[in-house]
């Protein structure tokens, strides 16, 4: 098992390297630079800035400098917010992104699986139809549409919840962003669970369990659920990366000071260091989550381990 985990960990290194390299050169090929303003800077200042950020060196040399700094854990300075290093800014945004994303992740797994079980047990009866409508709306209503509508209804008309902002981390400020972020994943996970559970409930070993006289609850929760969870677990990896994508929108709409907003601003302003830093950070996060998912998967299905 440890061996398996280690091999998977090693295989992520070249991925990271390729992505970082691609990202580095894509950014530099883009027209415009971090110091292009409405008013052009005096030539001397521009030269000093370029020298400070190594922008006057050949591209290959800049790349080597960046990578060698990276190996020492130094993400470099931010080109736009010049008082902060990239790492400092990431640390400021991190708690917000992780809190909202983490809560949404856990909630969508729990609610999605429970709803999926309910749908499969009450197949083609009222709860299942309700679930069907919910799944469909989760699939076709994009988050940038759901968010403003929820803001209008719950924030402005009913005045139950704040429209946006962080509010010092009070619970009410979490509700809308987490809901918007989790909704599509609750839908997808419950659809996967429902399908897999229906298949599992029709298999021979469940009939055996029934004829042994086991209780329904025991059959569903102990015997059918474990094999039915494999597709759900394999969805969690992609789900993590969709959640990150969603958090870009959610952080923008609800005005949360997370990393997603830093990324968007940095990309618009050609903040080379910050963009690379965010991308590296996101990728690490997703690769680690995928690794965890793979390990859980190997634990659920021993065949995977020996592949």
């Amino acid at each position: 098992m440890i061996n398996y985990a280690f091999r998977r960990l090693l295989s992520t290194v070249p991925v990271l390297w390729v992505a970082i390299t691609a990202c580095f050169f894509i950014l530099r090929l883009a027209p415009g630079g971090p110091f292009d303003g409405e008013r052009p800077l005096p030539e001397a200042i521009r030269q000093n800035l370029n020298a400070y950020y190594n922008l006057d060196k050949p591209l290959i040399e800049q790349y080597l400098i960046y990578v060698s700094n990276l190996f020492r854990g130094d993400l470099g300075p931010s080109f736009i917010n010049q008082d902060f290093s990239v790492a400092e800014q990431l640390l400021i945004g991190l708690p917000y992104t992780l809190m909202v994303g983490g809560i949404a992740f856990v909630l969508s797994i729990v609610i999605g699986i429970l709803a999926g079980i309910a749908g499969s047990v009450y197949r083609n009866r009222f709860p299942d139809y309700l679930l069907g409508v919910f799944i469909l709306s989760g699939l076709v209503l994009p988050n940038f549409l759901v968010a403003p509508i929820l803001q209008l209804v719950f924030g402005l008309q009913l005045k139950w919840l704040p429209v946006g902002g962080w509010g010092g981390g009070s619970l009410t400020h979490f509700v809308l962003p987490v809901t918007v972020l989790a909704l599509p994943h609750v839908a997808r996970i419950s659809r996967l669970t429902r399908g897999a559970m229906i298949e599992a409930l029709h298999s021979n070993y469940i009939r055996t369990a029934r004829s042994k006289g086991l209780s329904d609850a025991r059959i569903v929760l102990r015997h059918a659920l474990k094999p039915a969870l494999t597709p759900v677990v394999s969805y969690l990896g992609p789900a993590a990366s969709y959640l990150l994508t969603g958090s870009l929108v959610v952080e923008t709409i609800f005005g949360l000071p997370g990393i997603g907003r830093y990324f968007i601003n940095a990309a618009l302003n050609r903040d080379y260091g910050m963009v690379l830093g965010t991308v590296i950070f996101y990728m690490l996060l997703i690769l680690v989550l995928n690794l965890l998912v793979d390990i859980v998967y190997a634990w659920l299905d021993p065949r995977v381990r020996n592949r």
Partner: protein
Amino acid sequence: MIFMGRKQALIEKALGEGALPAAGSSLYKDAMARLWRNKAAVVSLAVLSLLIIAAIAGPWFIPFNHEDPDWSAFRAPPSLESGHWFGTDQNGRDLLARTLFGTRVSLLVALIATVVSVVIGVSYGAIAGYMGGRIDQAMMRFVDVMYALPYILFVILLMVIFGRNVFLLFAAIGALEWLTMARIVRGQTLSIKQREFIEAARASGQSNTGIIFKHIVPNLVGPVVIYATLTIPEIVVVESFLSYLGFGIQEPLTSLGTLIAGGADVLEVLPWLLWFPAAFLVLLLLSLLFIGDGLRDAFDPRDR
């Protein structure tokens, strides 16, 4: 209907050419009969055709266009008398004209990106599946890894580079959206390459490239078409998402995402600016989803 007619013809052609020997045409007829019995899919086909016709032909029948203001009607609510059925925006532009134009742009963009993703996904999957062994393993490992990357970040970076060249940009989205297609195609290829006609082609001295593109790919049309129908809504959403964040389609062009972003800002005072484009987007996504699911069920009834 415009798209579907051609796709159905393609499916028919592929199936007729011996994808499924002996039962070829009757299987196709079976599938079509199943599709016609699927009410959701039939209604969706009708809705989608209406949307497409409206998006293409609609603008010619409306006395307003998507960029010129009507100086007598700023922020006008929807009404039948004034001629602005969907109302106007803050700049007096007719929302019906803008919504139809936006639908057109969204669909066009989705079509370009889907074509790109199909071309890459099919070639990649077919090559991996046909070559097998180490090449297959390495190629599919690469796909697994790509799955894990937050590709939207790269799309945003590409956005920054391509700037306003919308069509190039969505070709780029397509270039990043081919992963699932490659997996599906590889799976199909693995089973097709066991068949006698492939052996016959090899025996008659066809090159690998010839076998892949002349003998395997034409037999993949069914699943590819089905999955492509499911890719279109995904790309419509990606486009809207990017436009919403301000990276996508920009003035004077417009798309459903751009319109929704604009409408969301003024939802409280000018609610129609959100509701109409949102309704178009949701209808479009719903109908594409039902058609894709319907096609899949019709050709592969096992799952039901």
